[in-house]
């Protein structure tokens, strides 16, 4: 992995140290992973949970991708060659060899980048003409396909391509905005959000587009679904209780529980490989930091 050894903001919270932070419905207090307070997004565990990747506002005009060592909490830049290009929404293949992410390449333009982290061969790109950009790429569990959201000529749909950025296929043909794909560990179904019912709801379908099922029914947004590594649950974000909070439901949409209760924003949930913890970006007293929440057994607040 092409990381530099650049140390940024000091982390004052030691690994394993539990801080008491209000606003959580679960039994265990969350572990605060950062304290610099800068605007953050898109955390994701890699290397079997030994590292955490996320993006943050390094300056008001630059979003950089970072890598945190979960043992030492040391943070380094993910890519030295980022230049002045914002990097968003990283994903990693299950075999750890590939990463893909959204990269701002010009005025009002972004592309999907697929990089081989083991070889120095040139990255593959999904580009397009004019303004616009791809969103929220992920890998299928077999590490052979990338699924992403893009508005080619109309409503934003899900698309897929191979690791060379070729063989593009449109996966959804729906009205509204489609976004945030996530794939079950068996590689059979893709979970995503779509807005055709007047707000974002979460759906599940086979990778070939068949057998679509609606998993949420709520008049406010249900977004950013993330399937747990064991395939049993889905974490997602909703405003149904007044602001951005994180919820967990069974893979079939049943048993919805709210797991954060802060009056401030909780967003960008992603699972730890152990399927027992969720990392997310929490806004507390106006600052944005990463938190790790144990949701093993005793989720206690039922959702609306």
């Amino acid at each position, binding site marked *: 992995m092409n990381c530099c050894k650049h140390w940024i903001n000091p982390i*004052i919270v030691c690994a394993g140290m539990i801080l008491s932070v209000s606003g959580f419905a679960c039994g265990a207090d969350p572990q605060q992973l950062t*304290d610099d*307070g*800068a*605007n953050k*997004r898109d955390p994701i565990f890699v290397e079997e949970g030994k590292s955490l990747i996320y993006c943050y*506002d390094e300056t*008001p*005009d*630059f979003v950089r991708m970072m890598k945190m060592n979960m043992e030492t909490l040391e943070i380094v830049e993910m890519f030295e060659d980022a*230049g*002045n*290009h*914002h990097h968003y929404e990283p994903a990693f293949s299950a075999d750890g060899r590939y990463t893909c992410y959204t990269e*701002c*390449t*010009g*005025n*009002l*333009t*972004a592309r999907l980048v697929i990089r081989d982290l083991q070889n120095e061969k040139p990255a593959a790109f999904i580009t397009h003409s*004019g*303004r*616009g*950009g791809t*969103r929220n790429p992920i890998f299928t569990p077999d590490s052979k396909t990338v699924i992403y959201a893009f*508005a080619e*000529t*109309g*409503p*934003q749909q899900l698309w897929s391509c191979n690791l060379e950025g070729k063989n593009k296929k449109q996966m959804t043909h729906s*009205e*509204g*905005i489609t*976004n945030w794909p996530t794939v079950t560990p068996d590689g059979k179904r893709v979970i995503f959000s779509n*807005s*055709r019912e*007047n*707000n*974002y709801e979460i759906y599940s379908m086979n990778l070939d587009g068949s057998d679509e099922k609606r998993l949420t029914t709520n*008049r*406010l*947004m249900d*977004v950013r679904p993330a399937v747990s590594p064991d395939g049993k649950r889905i974490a997602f974000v909703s*405003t149904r209780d*007044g*602001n*951005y909070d994180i919820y967990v439901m069974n893979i079939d949409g049943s048993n919805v529980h709210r797991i954060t209760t802060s009056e401030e*924003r909780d*967003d960008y949930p992603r699972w730890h490989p152990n399927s027992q913890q969720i990392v997310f970006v929490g*806004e507390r*007293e*106006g*600052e*944005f930091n990463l938190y790790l929440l144990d949701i093993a057994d005793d989720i206690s607040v039922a959702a609306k």
Partner: protein
Amino acid sequence: MIDFGSFRAASCSGKTRRSFLKTSSIVPFALGAGLPSLQAVEQARQKAKAKSVILLWLWGGPSHIDMVDPKPDAAMEYRGPFGTIATKTPGMHYTELLPRMAARSDKYCVIRSMQTTDSGHPGAGTIGVTGFKESPGPVQPNFGAIIAKHRGQDELATTPSSSLPPFFYVGRGIPRDLPRRIEGYGGGTLGKAYDPFLVSCSDRGEVGIPTLKMLPNMSPKRISNRKDLLSELDVEQHRLEKNLLGQWGHTYQSAFDLLTDAKARDAFDLTKESPKTRRSYGHTTFGQGCLLARRLAQAGVPYIQVNWSEYVETFTPNGDFGWDTHIYNFELLQDRHCPIFDRAFSTLLDDLDDRGMLEETLLVAMGEFGRTPQISNRAAREHWQHCYFSLWAGAGIEPGRCIGQSDSKGEHPVTRPITPLMAGTTIAELAGVGAQQRAEMKVLDGGSLIDELL
């Protein structure tokens, strides 16, 4: 980067941080060089309902449909993906992106029938803050320049005393798109003497004065009065080329005046606020900029324009995420813009109210236009000058009302269109610049008041 003094500040995690008055390495041009002194404006401000005006300039064109004028019954290609929530104003709904503002709609008014005449950023930007097109010239003065001149009418010819200028920009720079800045940023026909004084504010509340780029040994600690300043300038004259020092001249002296004036330094020092207050605005450049604006208003500054961003472009290398959401409109509003704005606007409103300042402070939020009601083929929204929104609070405005109405798709007003010229005229009127004074200054010609607000 030069530090002008430091202030001990408690961080949000309870530790000590250092906040600095900073000067940047960029000096775009002379700003606020000859603005009249605060003492000069005191008499005029006594007559105004709005002792101070704070304009939150949402540069880039925020989407009215995705924020305060949702159209849930419109067709799919118009209405967007967001659900709606009730506000405190009966019958009025916002999208789910603005819960704090929805819960406070009884404290301000929404105008849903704004309309302008230019679909480009610099052009519409100039109209938005002057009321008039850039061409044919001459460029008309920014609303802030008009109020600055009015408040300092009698004292202009005198040497500025050390005090706060009456017209501030809070932000990273003059609003611009990639090719150029807006022409209506400053004094216009009133002259450069009425250009705004630019201060920046970081997400940590560090205040910078981009106008100052010189004299690395200067600091408020060393320079406690004008005599010290002149002495320091003498010293520096030996070190620096004389013509360079001459260029700085009056402009920089005005800036240095701020550093040697206790009231000014106090206004800039956000560490004087409680940690709770600083946090409540959110640790974003816009949030802390709003807090700085409140402090400047508290110090008696008549006009403060807080710029959301310097660059209009929302997703561009080196861009600072303006509201020009040609791409990722829905994602960026959800992820970044609306949460930041919802928090900062609501907190500023509460803060002004709690401190008893709202009756004498006019708070306005608007951009230069709205965004296309019809969603683009890139799942975003383009420029739309035919219908947009503005928010108004304080200075005697009766709150809790929705003024004006757009059609079922949000394409056009179905009530009387409200123009930027009307907005500027109303701002001026509330700030004490009456029709006679406007005529004498030859500004805001033909402008009428937004009666519904008054």
